[in-house]
């Protein structure tokens, strides 16, 4: 486990410095969750509200020095739901409308818009959290938000073992390909399944040794304070983080009143 002691940066973390990066994780997590709930609670007919949310996301992205291209590229994670959304105007029941020669369901069109707009805003919010918070801080944040210790403990180990597992799996795949295997379609399941038990055991025995080493050094279910990157959020930092969800909440309330 070469990454022990390193920053546990993950795939989506953007290692730069910005006001958003410096905010304590618990404030960012709370702000992100509150923002998402405000977005989801917004009536779908209030098109302008979603424009306002997008502006908010853009402002935070600019502040966090996350460029638009990266954000858009990573949003493709949403693609299966976009496909589902595209099917809705054709499948939806009720009143129909003719658009460019197509006989579409009005409810379905709104439904598609609802999924794409709310889904995309949610993905952007979590991408911004991911870009500005490394996994270690994420767990520290959850811990400070009074998340039960058993959960943060599982999450800590999960993130520690993830790199080991993915690395081992990749090495086994390369080994298979270099021996003439051609993994594609459903047939790769067999090769994958044949090696999966061994992969699991190897990773476990490695992880168990690390765990026992941690226990012998005084680990009791929570990482030491020195491990935490930032101090707990001050009232001022909570207020700064609250600006985004408060603005979003205002937009949502206005939209609800107007429609």
């Amino acid at each position, binding site marked *: 486990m070469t990454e022990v002691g390193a920053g546990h940066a*993950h795939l*989506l973390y953007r290692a730069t410095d910005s006001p958003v990066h410096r905010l304590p994780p618990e404030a960012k997590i709370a702000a*992100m*969750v509150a923002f*998402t709930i405000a*977005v*989801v609670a917004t009536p*779908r007919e209030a098109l302008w509200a979603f424009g306002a949310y997008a502006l908010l996301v853009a402002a935070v992205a600019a502040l966090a020095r996350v460029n638009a291209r990266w954000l858009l590229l*990573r*949003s*493709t994670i*949403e693609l*299966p739901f976009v496909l*589902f959304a595209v*099917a*809705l105007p054709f*499948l*939806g*029941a009720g009143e129909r409308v003719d658009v460019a020669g197509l006989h579409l369901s009005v*409810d*379905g069109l709104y*439904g598609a818009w*609802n*999924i*794409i707009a*709310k*889904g995309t805003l*949610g993905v*952007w919010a*979590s991408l911004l959290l*991911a870009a500005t918070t490394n996994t270690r801080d*994420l767990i520290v944040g959850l811990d400070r938000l009074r998340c*039960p210790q*058993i*959960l943060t*403990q*599982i*999450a800590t*180990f*999960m993130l*520690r*073992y*993830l790199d080991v*597992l*993915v690395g081992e799996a990749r090495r086994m795949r390369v080994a298979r390909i270099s021996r003439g295997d051609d993994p594609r*379609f*459903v047939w*790769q*399941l067999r090769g994958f*399944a044949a090696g*999966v*038990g061994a992969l*699991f*055991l190897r*990773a*476990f025995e490695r*992880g*168990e*040794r*690390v765990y026992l080493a941690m226990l012998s050094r005084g680990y009791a279910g929570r990482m030491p304070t020195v491990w935490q990157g930032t101090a707990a959020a001050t009232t001022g930092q909570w207020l700064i983080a609250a600006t985004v969800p408060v603005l979003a909440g205002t937009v949502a309330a206005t939209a609800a009143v107007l429609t």
Partner: protein
Amino acid sequence: METLAMHISNGIINGPVAAVFAAIALAAMAYCVMRGRQDLDDRLAPMAGLVAAFIFAVQMLNFPIFTAGVSGHLLGGALAAMLVGPWVGALCVAVVLVVQALVFGDGGVAMLGLNITNMAVIGIAVAYLLIALLLRVLPRSPTGLAVTAFVAALVSVVVAAMGFVLQYQLGGTTDLGGNLAGLAGTMAVSHLFIGVGEGLITATTVVTVAKVRPDLVYALRALKPAAPVTVPTVGGVR
């Protein structure tokens, strides 16, 4: 490896229904935390982390299976129930879902209650009930264990997928009318395929682990205490 979102994303199910399921998920998780604390010992703690990491990794793998717009993926519920038990297992799946929603944008944060209910509560409950039943009925052999794991995984995946159909019926943001049956059918068929894949992976993993380290399989410890279990000194020379 391409990563795609596969959990319910924001805006698919309406707010009130999402809130109700969030309450259900929260209550179920609180109970699991209570029971899980008693289970979590020095052997189970690293195992729980590895199971969670394994589920996380497996959910990122996409097996190209044809689905008409509705995508599916492996769940890992049966594996978790088998190796770390229902309480810690449900917590493992929930942790995976929370981390995916928070930093990968996979599954909306506002829809977490729905996703946790489907995969961590329904998926694990069905898997563990089947495991408990089949381990008592089937012969105590690697084949019996493999069949148990396969069936538990297959059925739990399909039932969890039906959880989504039920939630869509209760609070889908678009009224599909008669097409809801079509959605149910698509979900059932696609998850039947996924369930077979999941069943094979679960069965091979569990059988391999049970052969080398039977002490690590929770279901064998809890449900078949009579079985000769060799417990190597933890952390000792192997």
